[in-house]
């Protein structure tokens, strides 16, 4: 029942957000400016940000949201709030150093904020080491905390009875799904237990993050290459460090094929070792980014068209794609987890039965 309610709420929000904005954006008449604005908005949304921006009132040019802490390492720790940048318009000063945001990156500048460019329009200013709590980092923190609290409560409820609490009733089949449909068939009864924690964490982390990406908060975490790189890297490292002898044998000296073929296969297999996590990284990143781009473009098209009939059609399409994206959010978490389990299974497989 709870899930249904949340689903209804989500649908309502999805319906209401574009329509509310239609009313407020009615004033924008010039089509070209609208188009470029939409493009800018989408690009802005896809990138990480230094403040948690919810929406902007264009008529009064006020931004709604809250600033996040900036943490820089530049011969000493510099910590200050991102409000100092005034949404990238001002130069921030910290302990005698000056910083400016240009194209979503922090550069060290002088007091006037002058940026020097080379002939390819790349900024040549020094970049401090940036460990800021950006919008994505903040979202990851929040969602991690949410996941932890939800599942801890779920785990605790087992102490009282065999029947879990409400969260558990919803999540337990998913936990069993990860165990029975992902881990055991791909890794095998013998070895699956030691990977369960990682598989479950990665599955629920990606799923929750993907779902929050569909809320009107405009969070786009798994559409950041650094995030997916991190997850793929951990999968890669676990695969290599838990692998058995057979795994390496199958890479460098494939049994059951003629000797010349072994020399051909070895580099291909070795390349495959790196391509597999790379594909994991790209797949998640590209799917989520593409989903966000498509959804935002469709919402943007609602403002481009003046015809109410076209707007209605695009509203329906947006709704349809939003539901598809809900499915994609789950599917990508599933595929990431399943391929991870598959690679783990390859690492621990013992091939004494065939060849």
């Amino acid at each position, binding site marked *: 029942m709870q899930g249904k309610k949340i689903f209804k709420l989500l649908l309502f929000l999805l319906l209401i957000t574009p329509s509310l904005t239609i009313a407020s954006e009615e004033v924008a008449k010039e089509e070209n400016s609208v188009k470029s604005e939409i493009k800018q908005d989408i690009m802005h949304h896809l990138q990480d940000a230094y403040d948690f921006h919810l929406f902007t009132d264009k008529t009064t040019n006020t931004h709604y949201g809250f600033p996040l802490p900036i943490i820089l390492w530049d011969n000493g720790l510099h910590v200050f709030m991102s409000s100092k940048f005034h949404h990238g318009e001002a130069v921030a000063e910290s302990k005698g150093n000056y910083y400016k945001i240009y194209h979503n990156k922090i550069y060290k500048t002088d007091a006037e904020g002058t940026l020097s460019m080379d002939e390819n329009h790349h900024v040549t200013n020094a970049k401090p080491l940036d460990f800021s709590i950006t919008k994505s980092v903040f979202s990851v923190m929040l969602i991690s905390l949410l996941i932890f609290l939800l599942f801890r409560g779920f785990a605790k409820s087992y102490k009282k009875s065999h029947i879990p609490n409400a969260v558990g009733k919803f999540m337990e089949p998913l936990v069993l799904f990860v165990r029975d*449909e992902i881990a055991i*068939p791909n890794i095998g009864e013998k070895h699956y237990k030691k990977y369960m924690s990682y598989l479950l964490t990665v599955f629920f982390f990606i799923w929750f993050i993907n779902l929050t990406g569909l809320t009107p908060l405009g969070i786009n975490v798994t559409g950041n290459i650094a995030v997916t790189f991190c997850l793929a890297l951990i999968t890669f490292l676990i695969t290599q460090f838990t692998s058995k002898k057979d795994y390496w044998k199958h890479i460098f000296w494939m049994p059951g094929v003629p000797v010349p073929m072994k020399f051909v296969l070895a580099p291909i297999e070795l390349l495959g070792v790196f391509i597999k996590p*790379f*594909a994991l990284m*790209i*797949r998640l990143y*590209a799917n989520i980014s593409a989903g966000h781009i498509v959804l935002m473009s469709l919402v943007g098209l609602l403002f481009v068209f003046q015809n109410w009939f076209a707007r209605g059609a695009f509203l329906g399409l947006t709704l349809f794609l939003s539901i598809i994206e809900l499915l994609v959010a789950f599917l990508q978490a599933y*595929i990431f987890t*399943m*391929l991870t389990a598959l690679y783990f299974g390859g690492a621990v497989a013992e091939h004494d039965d065939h060849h």
Partner: protein
Amino acid sequence: MEIPAIVGAGLVVIGAGIGIGRIGGSAMDAIARQPEATNKIQTAMLIAAALIEGIGFAALFAV
């Protein structure tokens, strides 16, 4: 005349699309023929589709 890289990427995407479509279609046929093996077929289908998708991404990001 030089063909832009994006055209090549487009061709790869078309190829990958056809590939994934064929996988999906074949999987549907297989499920229709053997509904009791749905789970196994689905898993195999997703893995195969994911691999082709990887090629598609490689082309897209090579541009």
